[in-house]
């Protein structure tokens, strides 16, 4: 084998199976030299672009229009970035009219998989449609909810979900600087899930993976706050409600009869919530006391639970080596300065990990001991001018809009622009020892910064929005 052949093969492994490429080691992922990594990233990006140009119609047409035929340098990709709007560009009316054949046709142009044979006959709603896609294609679509009357549909695939879960384990249970042990690679813990048990929203879809991936297959070790799923069609209604309210058209909003028929079921679920919360609390503080757990939730939910626990005189609930992951925006949430201490005090753990990412990407970028979010090696980060979207220099300290090209994404195009303001110090060698580029700690959504309404219902607001939709149904004669 010549050296060129070897490099070629390793680039393919790097882009298609980075977990094996880095020997399932968090340390190796963040120890590779920048020059070596960047050379591979450039090559991999070029290859993936060619593949996706073949297989993703929307990318091909954009590239054709812009006259882009190859990607050689990092900045070559920036005109091809998709904004979050690309994943909700379908007309909302298609859902109302149950034209899931056309929805499939739309999605087909956003994914590398062939969806032309998907049968959507008789599809009752979004959840039903996504279930069909699950059954008939390699996709495992996730949704995210907004306020313009539509929801984003991200064509993720099953393979990516599996890889994603493995990556979570690698990042959560390994420590930088130490090669992984068998126990770290295959942890068996109780999972504390202060959220809805299931759903198609990005942060809920992962629940099923965690249920299988973290508990050694014992699903009784999965402890959700609410034992039911968030209904995507109900979330779609909530999104339409907010849009209708802003247009003064709430009186014109029609509720799909299929959803309306389930009104009583939704109301019953809502009525049970206080009871569910009590039961969850009891389980946490009695059954799970002193156990090693994995728990993940947004900052404010984590804080609310911790505060409630401390108020009840409960502290140091879990084993100190438990894995705790938190993150998410702080929009509309005011937490005291010492909120992390409150959470730690209640949970009784040694460390709380934080991650940064967005639903379009393949993984979270994990926070280091210095508080920076180190970028996963298969993700190429960019800092863009927030107004023009032109890339800022990859030197010195740069603040602007975060964008990434994510090589690992196979099912959809990996170039996405976020709504977040980030800072990267490109010249920094982080004192934590990781060689990778990192986002600085302070990350803010531009919408939050400008004090304007965000077109996004954050994962933190799922519960509130769910209730909003149910309350609306209660008030309408169905």
């Amino acid at each position: 084998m010549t050296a060129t052949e070897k490099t070629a093969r390793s680039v393919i492994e790097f882009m298609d199976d980075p977990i094996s490429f880095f020997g399932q080691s968090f340390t190796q992922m963040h120890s590779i030299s920048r020059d070596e990594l960047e050379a591979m990233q450039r090559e991999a990006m070029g290859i993936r672009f060619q593949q996706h140009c073949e297989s993703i119609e929307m990318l091909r047409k954009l590239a054709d229009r812009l006259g882009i035929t190859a990607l050689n340098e990092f900045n070559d990709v920036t005109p091809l970035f998709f904004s979050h709007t690309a994943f909700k560009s379908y007309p909302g009316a298609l859902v109302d009219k149950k034209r899931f054949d056309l929805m499939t046709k739309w999605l087909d142009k956003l994914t590398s998989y062939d969806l032309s044979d998907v049968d959507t006959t008789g599809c009752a709603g979004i959840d039903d449609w996504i279930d069909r896609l699950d059954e008939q294609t390699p996709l495992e679509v996730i949704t995210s909810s907004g306020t313009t009357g539509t929801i984003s549909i991200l064509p993720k695939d099953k393979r990516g979900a599996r890889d994603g879960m493995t990556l979570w384990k690698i990042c959560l249970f390994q420590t930088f600087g130490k090669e992984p042990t068998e126990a770290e690679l295959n942890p068996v813990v109780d999972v504390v899930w202060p959220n809805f048990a299931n759903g198609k929203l990005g942060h809920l879809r992962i629940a099923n993976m965690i249920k299988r991936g973290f508990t050694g297959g014992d699903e009784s070790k999965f402890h959700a706050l609410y034992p039911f799923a968030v209904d995507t069609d109900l979330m779609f209604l909530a999104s339409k409600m907010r849009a209708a309210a802003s247009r003064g058209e709430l009186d014109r909003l029609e509720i799909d009869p299929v959803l309306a028929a389930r009104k009583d079921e939704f109301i019953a679920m809502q009525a049970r919530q206080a009871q569910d919360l009590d039961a969850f609390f009891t389980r946490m503080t009695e059954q799970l006391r002193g156990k090693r757990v994995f728990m993940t939730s947004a900052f404010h939910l984590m804080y609310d639970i911790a505060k409630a626990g401390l108020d009840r005189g409960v502290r140091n609930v879990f084993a100190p080596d438990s894995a705790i992951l938190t993150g998410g925006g702080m929009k509309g949430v005011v937490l005291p300065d010492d909120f992390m201490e409150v959470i730690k005090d209640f949970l009784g753990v040694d460390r709380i990990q934080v991650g940064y990412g967005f639903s379009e990407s393949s993984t979270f970028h994990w926070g280091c001991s210095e508080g920076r979010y180190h970028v996963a090696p298969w993700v190429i980060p960019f800092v863009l001018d927030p107004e023009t979207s032109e890339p800022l220099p990859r030197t010195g300290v740069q603040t602007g809009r975060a964008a990434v090209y994510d090589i690992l994404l196979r099912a959809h195009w990996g170039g996405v622009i976020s709504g977040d303001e980030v800072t990267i110090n490109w010249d920094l060698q982080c004192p934590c020892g990781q060689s990778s580029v990192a986002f600085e700690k302070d990350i803010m959504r531009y919408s939050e910064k400008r004090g304007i309404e965000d077109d996004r219902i954050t994962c933190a607001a799922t519960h509130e929005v769910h209730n909003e939709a149910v309350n609306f149904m209660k008030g309408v004669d169905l």
Partner: protein
Amino acid sequence: MIAYTVPLFLRGRVISDDLVPFDTRVGAAQFQAPDMSKYVERLPLKSPAEMSDLYDLSFDEILDVLEALGDALDFDTNTHLQEAYEASLVANVLPPAMTHNSYRILRPLFSRDNVYEIADSQVGLDYLNGWVSHTLRDGRELRVRAFGSRVLHIPAGNGGLVSAVTILRSVITRSDVIIKAPSNDPLTAVAIARTMVDLDPDHPLTKHLSVAYWKGGDLAVEEILYQPQHIEKIVAWGGLASVKHVTRYIQPGLELIALDPKRSATIIGHEAFDDEATMREVARRAATDIGVANQEGCANARVIYVLSGTDADGLAQANRLGELIYQELMSLPAVISTPPRYPNRELLDHLEASRMTEDFYRVIGGEQCEGAIVVSQFDEPVDYSPMLSGRVANIVPVDSIDKVTAAVNAYTQTIGIYPESLKRRLRDTLPLFGAQRLTSLGYACNVAIAAPQDAIEPIRRMCKWVVDEECDAGVVIPLWRLTPA
């Protein structure tokens, strides 16, 4: 950096002390204004009796004052206006040529004929200047007079016209007026007020005018000022949030006149496609409705329903009209319309997404943030239609008018319609859904002041309609003489 100062204009006095900094809505610049928590108690009239001097004025004198004011509001010679213009360049999204132009229309606004027409048609001079009497069926003589009130105005800041109209309305109703200066047009009201001082610092009309800036929602000011003992009416223009937060102060004795957020629509009949010349004419008119003042106003066209039908021919016509409208939009003169200075990023992202979604949308232009036309390829507007701004409009082909009426609601202000025959056909039904003003295509932003606004009559509402009844016991049967039935 402090770009400019918004002084407090307090009943003829200009105060620039106790300055505190504020952020502008656009960019990084700041401005300063007196800390109103220190002055708020001096804003309201001490006693309603002090309004009596307004009633010593004849309407002729009011017309004289306003005409002189109009003459003095000559942009080339009036330094107050020039200063207001400079501040607007920093505070407002409109480009210089357009802002400049908006000051040119002040003089004709205050002309004698114009003020007379507004006062007489929107209130009635008889009612403004005296008691109007007539005899009711029961024999009593009823005399009605429109009194001014103590009114607080929260005008919109898209162009200097709103501040000028606000002052005009207050003066003709003989009101005592406090204007909260809008942050995006910070100095026009002050400039007009200072010009009044230049003309006559002690005139009652000058003494019954105050202009101040505080940040909307500042409790230290609003909780003190927004009380029925200080003001009787609040005229609030603008966004949902700003109108909504005023509502908490509304109580018996303090009324809200809301000129709240509106959206407008456009309807184009199939006649537009009769021939090439007609289509061009329609395109020019539609482009004007979209483009005026860069689509910052509530009267601008945004979603344009076209009765072209949605079959292949209909879509081809709609697309062709879209091309023509785009061309006309691009050729509007710079005093009317330019590419937006601050395009909405989120909207542009949606636009690019629509461009990639060819099955449902055709996007014409927009690649240089210059404005764009999105033609829906089916009978629904884009889901982001409330965001349309900066010269981005959406053409929606429809098969029948029912689809359009369904889109008209309580938030719909102006509907520009082509041709007139279609407008006449629709004028008795569209108001049922919420439309407030129907106008010829091309005139959506050419708004008459001598007309009701937002389906109310704000000038009449600013007045207190007081009744004096004279009952002759020989004619009007007295209750004390009623015998049990």
